[in-house]
């Protein structure tokens, strides 16, 4: 059974009388224990796919399953940890209170939350800042707190939307190390990113999406030609798709 399974997902948004097709029959399976990079230019439909996966929006057709549980019908949220692209918090709470809330909402008991909070804050270099109100955090600290919220209940599957977005090199290194740790623990990580060097280094497999269509899914080495980089391969694939569409 796949950890995450998108089965023929289509989604169209309406803006007044205008219709915008965001996903066209996307099928994609993410295996257990793999790190999967979800790539695509802006507006490709990555965020839409993630929102459908998290049941924030409903697909027009198709089914998404998380460890066999049907999204929109079954309760699956306790199996996942999610980091949004720009995490927003209740700014007047402290980091510790935020994590306590996240743990409780995920069904943890007080003792478990206490132990995991200590561990997660140390891992993400937020131990000193734990007692501070979130409104005093920098962007990088907020990003790390968002990741701490995803980690607190130790789920099997992680969905990270642009986890390196807006981070300095140290922050990026920290998040990269956390993702590699998760791989060692046999967790599944599904993340979208624009930073292709990180994707190339971290991912077992990648998926490339453009204008709602999945152009490629497999190991990065399958599309990278000799001597070129993933970035070259990505640009080539997108350009070929655009040409084919306009022809």
């Amino acid at each position: 059974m796949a950890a995450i399974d998108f089965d023929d997902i289509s989604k169209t948004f309406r803006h007044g009388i205008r219709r915008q097709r965001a996903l066209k029959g996307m099928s994609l399976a993410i295996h257990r224990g793999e790190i999967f990079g979800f790539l695509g230019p802006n507006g490709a439909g990555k965020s839409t796919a993630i929102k459908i996966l998290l049941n924030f929006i409903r697909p027009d057709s198709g089914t998404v399953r998380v460890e066999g549980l049907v999204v929109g019908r079954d309760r699956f949220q306790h199996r996942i940890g999610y980091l949004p692209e720009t995490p927003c918090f209740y700014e007047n709470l402290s980091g510790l209170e935020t994590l306590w809330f996240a743990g409780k909402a995920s069904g943890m008991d007080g003792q478990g939350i206490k132990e995991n909070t200590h561990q997660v804050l140390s891992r993400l270099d937020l131990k000193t800042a734990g007692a501070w109100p979130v409104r005093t955090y920098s962007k990088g600290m907020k990003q790390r707190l968002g990741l701490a919220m995803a980690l607190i209940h130790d789920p099997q599957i992680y969905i990270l939307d642009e986890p390196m977005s807006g981070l300095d090199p140290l922050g990026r290194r920290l998040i990269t190390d956390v993702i590699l740790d998760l791989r060692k623990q046999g967790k599944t990580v599904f993340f979208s990113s624009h930073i292709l060097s990180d994707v190339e280094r971290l991912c077992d497999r990648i998926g490339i999406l453009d204008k709602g269509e999945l152009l490629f899914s497999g190991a990065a080495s399958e599309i990278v030609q000799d001597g070129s980089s993933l970035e070259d391969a990505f640009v080539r694939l997108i350009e070929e798709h655009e040409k084919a569409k306009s022809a």
Partner: protein
Amino acid sequence: MHKILLIAWVTFKDSIRNKALYGIFFFGLVLFAANIIITAMFSWELGKVAVDVGLSVVSFAGLVIIFFLSINLVSNDLDRKTIYLILSRPVGKLQYILGKYTGLGLILLLSSSVLGACAALSVEMATHNVKGYVPMHFSWPTFFLGLTFLTLSLLVVLAIALLWVTVTTHPFTALLLSLFSYFIGQNVETVKSIIITSQMYAENPMLTRVVEYASWIFPNLAAFDLKTTAAYGLSVDAGYLMWVAAYGFSYIGVCLVMSILIFQRRQLA
């Protein structure tokens, strides 16, 4: 239930540390000081004026909390996607709505308790040396009964505001619709009785019907207003009070059920 209380806790804690709330409380306290000065300008019915101003300030502060703090807080959850961090966990939309309402309702209860106590103090101070100008039957239990029903009316307005936030996509629209509902709710019963009793509108059944429908849709907020009763210490019919309380809680229930049903269908893009 546990998740509802959790959302309520986080809402309450975030709101109670909001600087805007301190501003509202400070403004309320200034108005109570003003109550003592305003009352001193009157040479008759001092007790009535003091109670009217005191309870009006509690009501005003509650409305400011609803229209400017509560609507903003819930809209921010939706606009800034704070809600993603909640709904990506095993928390349903039903629990979210009920938790938000409970948390914001607790803020209103706190506001009414603190400012209600200040109102009582300002009434006592304003009338301390002029006992002869205080209505004969004035009693504190009736005063606090007035405060309780005022708070219930604020809880009704909060439920309406939450409903409009779930229906609309912009906080300003939700604010306008909430204000609109509040003003209709305050005046619909008066307008209805004028139209029904006045000969002027007798030949306009359309208008009568519109007002009749409005009185069914919008809450009769005037029914919760016991300021005059509190000021004069008038006797109140227990049956009437029970009916008003049941009406208030039912209206809140209907608003919350509608908010949940609408929110369940809403896509959080």
